[in-house]
């Protein structure tokens, strides 16, 4: 009889899941709640690259701390085809020593270094052993790391853990020293994006056209339209009210609650009388492409897609919703509900659509409680 470790692992996972579902644990703040410096997405111009091709990155970040300069952002594209394709194989072990693959921040710049470009190696695929799975399309892999810091960045003493440290300069010594304060994850995000290169395969980012919010269809630069198709007589939405993808400029940490148009202004949620406002990005179902790499055995699998929701105030009911299932297909209802803040404030909402092949696109909506 065949006995597989996978069966035991599945039982273990199932048992732990059941136990966790029936058991208790501390309720942490959800990932959808933005109350510090956060990275919300990184978009690649080409989620699947080609050997020798250029890839442009746009990093979506937000900092809720007012009166703070834009974060210092560094990009490192020094690792390709690490051992076992594991990102941990890159830490402390750069495989490509090319200065053009590094982008350092300008400490005096008034805008963040949130864009980056690099060109993949022409031998990114041919320089690695062929896949053990003969049915797997050969690929190459670059890891692009970034550090987003609300202070100053320095190289870490132990690059095997995190190559960078983020600190607040407190003494007069240049660089990171014992007298400085090392900043934690509220003020520092270290992350990576994996760039798969294929000779032929391509992948597009999800197509987001607007947002459906509280019974309104919202498109950038247009007045709201009701879900029944009735156009509003209100003004067209400004880019600060609604923007899509790289068209969004960084949002300020603080604004007057009177900046929002009428349809995007709500009374604060007080006394338990809290409206549940439905929100979802308007994603073109054509975004769900065939996942050629995952398909096999006669199965045609689509991309697995989902939406992450974030808010700087109020409460999001479901921080993640399923957009497209590889087998079951497109989900018609991928909205979540949003409960406005209980105080007068400007709140930013993000809906970020992802696919499992590195594609992403987002919409940002500004609403006010007053």
């Amino acid at each position, binding site marked *: 009889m065949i*006995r597989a470790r996978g069966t035991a692992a599945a039982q273990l996972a199932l048992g732990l899941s059941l136990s966790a579902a029936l058991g*208790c644990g501390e309720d942490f703040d959800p*990932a959808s709640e933005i109350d510090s410096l956060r990275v919300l997405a990184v978009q690649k111009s080409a989620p699947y690259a080609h050997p020798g091709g250029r890839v442009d990155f746009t990093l979506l970040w937000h900092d809720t701390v007012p009166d703070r300069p834009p974060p210092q952002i560094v990009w490192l594209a020094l690792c390709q085809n690490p051992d076992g394709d594991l990102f941990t194989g890159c830490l402390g072990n750069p495989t490509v020593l090319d200065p053009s693959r590094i982008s350092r921040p300008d400490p005096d710049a008034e805008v963040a270094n949130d864009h980056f470009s690099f060109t993949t190696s022409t031998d990114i695929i041919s320089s690695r052993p062929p896949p053990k799975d003969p049915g797997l399309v050969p690929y190459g892999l670059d890891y692009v790391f970034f550090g987003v810091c609300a202070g100053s960045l320095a190289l870490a003493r132990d690059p095997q853990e995190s190559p960078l440290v983020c600190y607040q300069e407190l003494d007069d010594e240049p660089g990171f020293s014992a007298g400085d304060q090392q900043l934690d994850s509220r003020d520092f995000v270290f992350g*990576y994006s994996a760039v798969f290169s294929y000779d032929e395969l391509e992948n597009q980012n999800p197509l987001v056209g607007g947002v459906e919010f509280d019974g309104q269809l919202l498109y950038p630069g247009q007045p709201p339209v009701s879900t029944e198709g009735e156009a509003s007589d209100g003004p067209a939405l400004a880019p600060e009210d609604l923007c899509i993808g790289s068209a969004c400029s960084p949002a300020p940490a603080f604004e007057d609650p009177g900046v929002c148009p009428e349809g995007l202004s709500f009374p604060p949620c007080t006394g338990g009388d809290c409206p549940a406002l439905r929100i979802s990005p308007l994603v073109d179902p054509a975004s769900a492409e065939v996942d050629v790499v995952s398909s096999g055995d006669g199965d045609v699998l689509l991309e697995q897609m989902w939406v992450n929701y974030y808010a700087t105030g109020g409460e999001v009911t479901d921080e993640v919703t399923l957009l497209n299932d590889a087998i079951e297909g497109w989900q018609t209802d991928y909205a979540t509900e949003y409960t406005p803040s209980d105080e007068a404030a400007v709140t930013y909402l993000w809906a970020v659509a992802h696919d499992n092949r590195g594609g992403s696109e987002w919409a940002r909506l500004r609403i006010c409680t007053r």
Partner: protein
Amino acid sequence: MGCHALSWLLCSASAVQAQPSAPDTAADTESAPAPSVPVPSAPPPGSELEPPRLSKFVDAEYPSAAKEAGVTADVLLRLRVESDGSVSEVDVIQGAGQGFDEAAVAAARQFVFSPATRAGQPIAVRIPFKYSFTLEQEVIAAPTAPTHGNFAGQVRIAGVDAPLGGAEIRLRDAEGKTYTATSDANGWWTVEDLPAGSYQLEVDAAGFSPLATTEEVHPGEATELVYRLAPSLGSAIVVSVLGERPPREVSRRTITRREVTSVPGTGGDALRSLQSLPGLARPPGLAGLLIVRGSAPEDTAVFVDGDTVPNIYHFGGLSSAIPSELLERIDFYPGNFGVRHGRVMGGIVDVGLRSPDTHCRGEEGPGAEGRCFHGLLQADLIDARALIQGPLPFSGWSFAAAGRRSWVDVWLKPALNALEANVTTAPVYHDYQIIVERAPRAGTRLSFRFLESDDALALLISNPNAGDPGLLGGSLKYGLSFYRIQSLIDVQLSPSVSLSTLLSFGRDRSEFSLGRFRFDLESYPIQARSEFAFDLMSGLTVHAGLDFQLGPFDVLVRAPEPPRPGEPAPGPFSTRPVLETQQSSTFFRPAWYADATWKVGALTLVPGARVDYARDTGHADFSPRVSARYDLSVRESYAGGVSRRTTLKGGVGVFHQPAQPQETDEVFGTPGLASNRAVHYSLGLEREFTDNVELSLEGFYKHLDELVSRNPGPDGSFAYDNQGSGYVVGGEALLKYKADARFFGWLAYTLSRSIRQDNPGAESHPFQYDQTHILTVLGSYKLGRGWEVGARFRLVSGPLDTPTLPLPNLPGVYAADAAAYTPLQGAPYSERLPLVHQLDLRVEKTWRLSDISLSFYIDLWNAYNHPADEQIAYNFDFSRRSYQQGLPILPSLGFRGEF
């Protein structure tokens, strides 16, 4: 000095000759099950069976060494008395060693009887005979004109003919004075120095129909009788108490039927009660995994009468895939198991299915106008099950049919839907079993079984987990099912040769898919296991067998390359490229084995060896093993008291476990891997303190090498090899109060340490399932009037987890493509969670209404609501942590009706 037989046991005389209507007679014929009503010293009315009577007794030669040492002994024999009164066969049922067995056999062969008769015709019968060796001075010391006598006997289970411990025997004389005794683990009991006269005798044991009869005690004589108790109405659940036959393994833990049904926290589930034994770790959460002596769950195999099955628990460990009602025995070998078993290096659970209960109740004797069909209906919050069994209208054939279905889906599906999980199939399981069997005579059995088990779950997770949204969301399907068609044939080919054969065919299916990932395995295993047992000479038995596994299979795996335990977190799976392998092949794993059970005086030595071949890996493995038991003292009655059994035991053996299929797969693994290897060492002591109390101590060491491990290869890619090693060291203690009429309980403690090293240059680390301390204390007490209460307390070292890097290091890295953080981990399994302690309670009330027994029970899991910390839970970026807790207080209510 002299030898004498104290008595021979007329009550269990067995007719050997097949009679035209033998099954309908009241006698304990070999072609019929044991009598339903225990037979006292006279045959039941109407049977016309006259037992044989000893006409020529021959003194045995007293072993000289034993005589010089002043040792006395009893040897229990079984004699075949031919129709001419001669003794043609003598078997030792319970030996005493030290030369007593051989002497008793030699003497008994010379006995001459007046033959037994049925309806006046002489017939051949089998009778038990106890040969007692006493020293002369004791006889001399006896009163010349005795006024008292001894009364002793054995209690056995009708049908399976196994000794029954814990039975309560009450003797009441004419003046109402009562004498009591309790049968020991071998079913024996003694009341000494009774005034001669007539006694009302009652034998009572939990779960069995009580017996009442009248017996005579004669002055200067010892009376010995065998009583067979039939399972009572309340015992459709029959997990037989095994006799204490010397095992071929160093340690065999057996759970008795009384214990199975009453261990708190198990809902009366036989296989879940296993986890209260020493050597078994507490599984994480609700996972029904068997973690034996620091081994991985896949290192332990589960057999049903020698036939491997993929799982014994329905998912989540909620209940067993084989219902308790059909179990005859559960043997658990925590290590150093015999050569009968192989292909794993952890432990063995061998479950034996019972023969259908055809015992007729309501009238005297089997085959009379009593009710011979029995049934059970049980339901709790989790599932409901039913069982019916009885004779078939063909001579000697019987049947049992049982089935179970969960109804978790009835209440869980709405609950999950309320949580916005679009449930297609809520967790649901079922199993059913059919047994058809014929046992024409003792030692011979033909049994056909059909077993089926199925677990299924399907849902669409509309709100993926933020930890890896591309993986932990979407459509989820889980299915695990198997069926088996088994035939078992046990044949006594000659007085000294027996053959036991199992042939099995079935289907195993494992299905798991989550979004794009899929694991689909379907196989049609054919298993053949055949074992000859040769009694070559007194004290020497040789077993030789073959153990074949063959079967076509189809497997499809589509998933990213999985990390092995202890490897750094690879980041979110959802964005990694998937590998796929699809195979249609036939596995073939034959094995041959032989061992010898050689009993020399107080020493029992079992050397053996096993040869395994696995066509899928292309490797053959040779696994020699030896175990030994040495009785430092045996249970004996002296004039001045009783000595108790003390046994020293130990063993050493080599165990091989072939690499897992995915490890040798060309896509996911590395072809050509050798088998994992373990060498088990153990040394222990068993000590009997009273008839009910015994202590077992055992130390063990497992040396592990050639373990399949995953390491970076020269080209940077990770590959499997056999460079892993490790060890498990520990000790186990089991202090047990064996079940008597009211109480049973035990204290089990295991101390262990399980270490692994992935390659010679790597640092050693604790194994994922290492648990240093495992303490279980449990007991159950019958209050009377149908009430029984029980409690189980467990104190276990917390599970191990791999923590993130300590602050001020960044604990997590943001994986932008998955919009999730992945942890930066510290040393593997370097943090132990807090101690787990838990109290489970059980209260059961049973009513007897004529032929129907109704029970209602409450099983309270985690009675003082101390949920165990199961794993470390983190917030989204791993900067905050807490412990994820398991189940809170959880009551389970159920009822059971039996007839």
